[in-house]
């Protein structure tokens, strides 16, 4: 077993670093050819990771272009190697990497775009919303309503931004038709949700966003509503809830009564 581990460590090292020669003593064949063959593995590993990253970040890929994206993918893989045999999990730390990345500082909205795309990527494979009967909410006594804990459909999330994030995302969708102009003075909160099998990205008001974020973090109705009103004095709770429930964005609730 230790031999097997040694061999695998040596090959792993060679894949990470072309200068590493530790694996050569375990391999058969003429050294020059073996070294060129090892490069095939390096290329495959890099290509598989870059392809997975592009699948999770298609808009970012389009925004920065082929060459820049390839460079980012390579640098990201060296900093944050894949940690799963399931490549759909690869790329979760890309936004944080872009925060620190010098070469894309001329596009300061990129980390937020990456955060949005990661949430879209996760929403794509999130559990399908089950249909439910909201009639039970009406049974809750008025004095208990503050203790309702709503459940948002899997895949729901909010991405805060200093930039017109929803607009940027929208105009880079395949098949987008319309004006490409972007008003850079607008800051948008992106609400990511699933509508059936479809992932939607829409701009959310400050109150809606605060309510959703608080609820996703486990807040009960009373506290989530307070957070929403804090964020936006004109927040209309009943209008928000009725839309969220009829559109299946909210897909259940529990009652978390005081003890």
């Amino acid at each position, binding site marked *: *077993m230790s031999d*097997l*581990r040694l061999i695998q460590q040596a090959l792993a090292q060679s894949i990470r670093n072309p200068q590493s020669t530790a694996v050569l003593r375990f391999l058969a064949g003429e050294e020059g*050819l073996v070294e060129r063959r090892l490069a*095939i593995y390096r290329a495959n590993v890099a290509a598989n990771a870059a392809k997975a990253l592009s699948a999770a970040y298609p808009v970012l890929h389009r925004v920065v272009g082929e060459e820049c994206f390839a460079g980012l993918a390579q640098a990201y893989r060296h900093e944050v190697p894949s940690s*799963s*045999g399931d490549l759909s999990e690869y790329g979760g730390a890309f936004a944080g990497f872009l925060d620190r990345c010098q070469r894309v500082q001329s596009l300061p909205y990129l980390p937020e775009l990456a955060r949005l795309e990661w949430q879209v990527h996760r929403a794509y494979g999130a559990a399908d919303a089950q249909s439910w009967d909201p009639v039970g909410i009406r049974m809750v006594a008025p004095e208990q309503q503050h203790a309702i804990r709503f459940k948002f459909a899997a895949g729901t999330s909010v991405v805060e931004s200093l930039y017109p994030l929803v607009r940027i995302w929208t105009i880079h969708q395949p098949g987008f038709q319309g004006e490409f102009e972007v008003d850079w003075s607008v800051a948008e909160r992106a609400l990511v949700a699933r509508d059936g099998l479809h992932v939607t990205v829409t701009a959310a008001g400050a109150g809606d966003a605060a309510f959703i974020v608080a609820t996703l973090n486990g807040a009960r109705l009373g506290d989530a509503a307070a957070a929403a009103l804090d964020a936006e004095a004109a927040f209309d709770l009943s209008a928000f809830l009725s839309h969220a429930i009829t559109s299946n964005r909210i897909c259940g609730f529990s009652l978390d009564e005081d003890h």
Partner: protein
Amino acid sequence: MTLSVLTTGIGLRQPHYREVFDRRPGLAFVEVHSENFFLDGGASMRALDRTRELYPVSLHGVGLSLGSADHLVDRHLDKLERLVDRIQPEFVSEHLSWGCLGAEHFNDLLPMPLTHTALALVADRVDHVQNRLGRRILIENISAYVAYSDCDMTEPAFLAALARRTGCAILLDVNNLHVNAVNFGFDSIAWIEELPPSVVGQMHLAGHAVTADGLVDTHGSRVSEPVWALYAEACRRLGPKPTLIEWDTDLPSLDVLLDEAAAAHAIAEGATEVSSV
């Protein structure tokens, strides 16, 4: 010509879903990569459910890393088990390879040294996976670009022993065999002769690229002439087996895949007729 009902199948990839659902070509089965469906729900899962209504499905794994010197990743196996429960596939297959060490995954199929130690390790893993899934799995021979100098046995002897110890079946990838035979200069027919026909449960066919440093498995072109010839030989020696056309990069039109599947069907039929005379 595309036959109305083939004994062969194709790898079904996302750009062809719609057309396959509409046309429903007569295929024996379709294959998908297990890891593309380790999801809780959404459009991909819905498409796979639909596929399963129309065809037997082969779940082909690329990320379990059966041969890693480290332990098997339980979470990966959990996800595979959940998918198998949902899809009830005809086949579940993985590779004789490793792909991760410590926390780092290379997401590639890296070759195993053909040693007694490696055999014992992989056999334990295959036992474990088969127990968890409650079914027989198939293990595929991979394309390789380097070979280890210290080996206790040949690859077919390794695979035959693995099948004997665990009861698993072997997925003979004819393209991978050809790629390796050219890259390392061995006789591919002698290789096939070392494999007991009864352990082979499926065959794969795909295209490769020819480079100055050897053949590279790309799944990006039509099956080459030498691979067709080797497939005919494999059919004669092993008997016809469920056979799949794999194509993953530079995906062509669905009709090209169906043509390739029809060509494989014709070769398998021809080989059976000859051998039964």
